[in-house]
């Protein structure tokens, strides 16, 4: 019983925090909403006793909140935008109000969060640049270059060097 009571305490605090995160004001409304939602959650919990009070309460609250925002937005796809509009509106006293004023609803539905103006696509076409003789020289070098050639040249010059050195030692020293 004590454990359950502590669970409801935690649920109550989480609910209060959730409502405060939605800037619910005034305080009287915060308390009223908390009590009402908690009461509903407790009723629901009676049918699903295995679920923790926090999970039960918050599942219920988020469902209520989503439904409210969906009704406010008039389109479930626009819930996020309705939320943003709600936070910008400053009408925090209306959170979860079952019958919000029509002008508030209109304002929420009319609000648009514009991350960018209407697109007006341009094609960016890359121009070919003539880099002149340097490009040709570089390409020829890259095409012809291989470490095998370098190694062969190195060995050839080493052989010439040692041959010359051997000749010098043999005939001139």
């Amino acid at each position, binding site marked *: 019983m004590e454990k359950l009571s502590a669970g409801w305490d935690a649920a109550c605090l989480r609910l209060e925090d959730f409502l405060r995160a939605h800037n619910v*004001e005034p305080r009287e409304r915060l308390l009223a909403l908390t009590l009402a939602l908690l009461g509903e959650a407790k009723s629901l919990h009676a049918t699903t006793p295995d679920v923790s009070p926090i999970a039960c309460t918050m599942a219920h609250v988020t469902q209520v909140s989503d439904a409210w925002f969906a009704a406010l937005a008039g389109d479930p796809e626009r819930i*996020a935008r309705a939320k*943003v509009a709600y936070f910008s509106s400053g009408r925090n006293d209306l959170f979860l109000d079952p019958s919000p004023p029509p002008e508030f609803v209109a304002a929420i539905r009319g609000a648009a969060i*514009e991350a960018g103006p209407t697109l*007006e696509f341009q094609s960016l*076409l890359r121009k070919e640049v003539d*880099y002149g003789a*340097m490009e040709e020289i570089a390409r020829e070098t890259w095409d012809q270059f291989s470490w095998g050639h370098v190694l062969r040249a190195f060995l050839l010059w080493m052989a010439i060097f040692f041959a010359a050195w051997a000749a010098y030692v043999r005939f001139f020293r």
Partner: protein
Amino acid sequence: MRPFAKVADLRPDTVSLRRALFLATGAGITAGGTVLMFSIFQSGGISLLEGALLALFVPLFGQIAFGFAIAFWGFVILAIGGDRFDIMRTLRADEPGAAPGSTAIALPIFNEDPDRTFRGLENMFRSLEATGAGTSFDFFVLSDSNDPDRWIEEETAWFRLCSRCQAFGRIFYRKRRVSLHGKSGNIADFCRRWGGRYQYLLILDADSVMSGETIVRLARVMDANPEVGIVQTGPKIVRGTSILQRFVQYATRSVGPLFAAGSNFWHLGGGNYWGHNAMLRLKPFIEQCVLPELPGRSPADRHILSHDTVEASLMQQAGYQVWFAYLETGSYEEGPPNLTESLKRDRRWCQGNLQHFWFLLAPGTRFTNRIHIFFGLMAYLTAPMLVAFIILSSWESYRRQVFEVFSGSIDNPAPIAWAPAALLAITVVLLFVPKLLGFLHLAPRAREFGGVLRVLASTLLETLLSVLIAPILLFFYTKFVVLTALGLRVTWKTQNRDAAGIPLSDAIRTYAAPNAIGLAAAAVVYFQMPGLLLWLSPVLAGLVLAIPIAMLTSSESLGLALRKWGLLLIPEESSTPEILQNLDAQPNDPTLTPRGIFQVAISPEAQAIHASLLRRSRVHARHKIDYLAALRQRLLSDGPPSLTRRELTALLWDPHAVEQLHRDIWLLPDQDLHPAWQHALRHFNERSELTNRRDIAQTGISRPAAATPNPQRGRL
């Protein structure tokens, strides 16, 4: 001074005469120095080593000669009251101004501090509004940030700014999903999406701030001169606190104007573009300035890293002029806080400038662009050349010394004994006279810089610091050139713009190599050629002291102490312009904490802002849903560090996944959440509590439950 009504008034003869004067000054001094050097070597014939030294001497001496020529002509221009052919003079102050052409102001960002970035943006927005011409301008924050926390913070900061300034529909935020080709790719993406809507584009850096008046004037100049494709301003470096920042910002205010005026003197409409604090004409920019591919074997080799000079070149090839509004005030930027950050930036610039080599000899490149490219190349290539010159000349001295000792000719005077002294004197003049000219330029306005004596002391201190830092730059520039030549890549990294000191361990790690080389060189010179030690001491001192120099110049407390003493002072430090005020203010908004990923997961507002900025996919692939669900589960149970940056980013790109994460955080009991989430949730709740308490204090309504500590809350 006769008016300069429009750029079309500029006669080709004037342009040719100025360029001839500039080139003759630089080339004449170089030729004189070369003759002197030749005469030094000439006695007894020129050996192979001396020939090599002479070949190195010409470009090295040429660089300081042309630098001097720019400063000299700049001083002359400023001394006679400014240039008639200053692009901003085409604006008539008495003309009633129609609304300037539609302009987009683009702020490309990459993991920058959102607080500082958006405060700068707010100042610019308000400043533009105050001009009455604000409606012609739209702001675009173009984010390429790959740090998920930064991304979320940027979104929230953007939303707050728009709310504060009533600027929805005027300030836009765009996060690029694929950050291709760094900053140039970011700008290209903007042009592709919205470039057709605007006439002009003002490009900023994350630390750029420009006054509304300056922005409007730039747009009006573009309106007045349809032949102009780019107007580049000379941003003043401000807000420095470390010694390095204050040293650089003072240098840009003493000798900087000379170089700026001197540059405009010779290039006029053939100027360069620095990539920020500049206004572009969008139509030709989109049609003609798309970056080409470089010749190269791999895609990475073919991508142009430093786009600005190339874009200026392409703009001029398209028949548009590029001007430098060098006297325009109200354009600002910040400098790197310490030597290490400055070198990181230099490494990127080095690689970018060296790539420009391809355009140096390309048939279509204009003459002035070739000169800009050549100067850009030489800025870094001269470093290895100078190192080679110092080594070879020291060896030559040693060889002569040994030869002379053995041949008994040590006491014989050189055939032309005055030549080395004359060459040395000319070199000193070329290096230090611009500093003197800078001092003379500042002297009439010395009061703004702390008074004549302080300006003199600051100039001496600035000269000393440049002498000490130059060898360190020499070492690193040489290293960068070699690394670039070996094909080692440089990535576009975020600049740390905070004035943080360099810890000893970092300083040792970074500067041990120049330090060791300096010590070894000093020892060799001391034991083998003690007579050369004095001559080489300016180079050796900087290397030997590299570690303490790096640490000292990064010191914020010393920098601020110098400011207190009125040294290296700039006018903006005595009286901060309105546009630069409050840029360091901390956000006084409790709803901004916790930040980043925690914020979007916990705060319903941040989550809603984020979700509404994302495109909702109508197709949900099963494997993607499962992948994101697994990531979300790991995030909840193991905390944010359990996910890589890439995984977090993948999660954040999906609105459903973010929504579900937000729901789970609020739904799950504490024991099912990782301690990091518990802590963040508690912090968020405490913040809510604080907000409530603040509300109570403001409204006078008390709430006993909130006033008493709750053990249950402590556990939460």
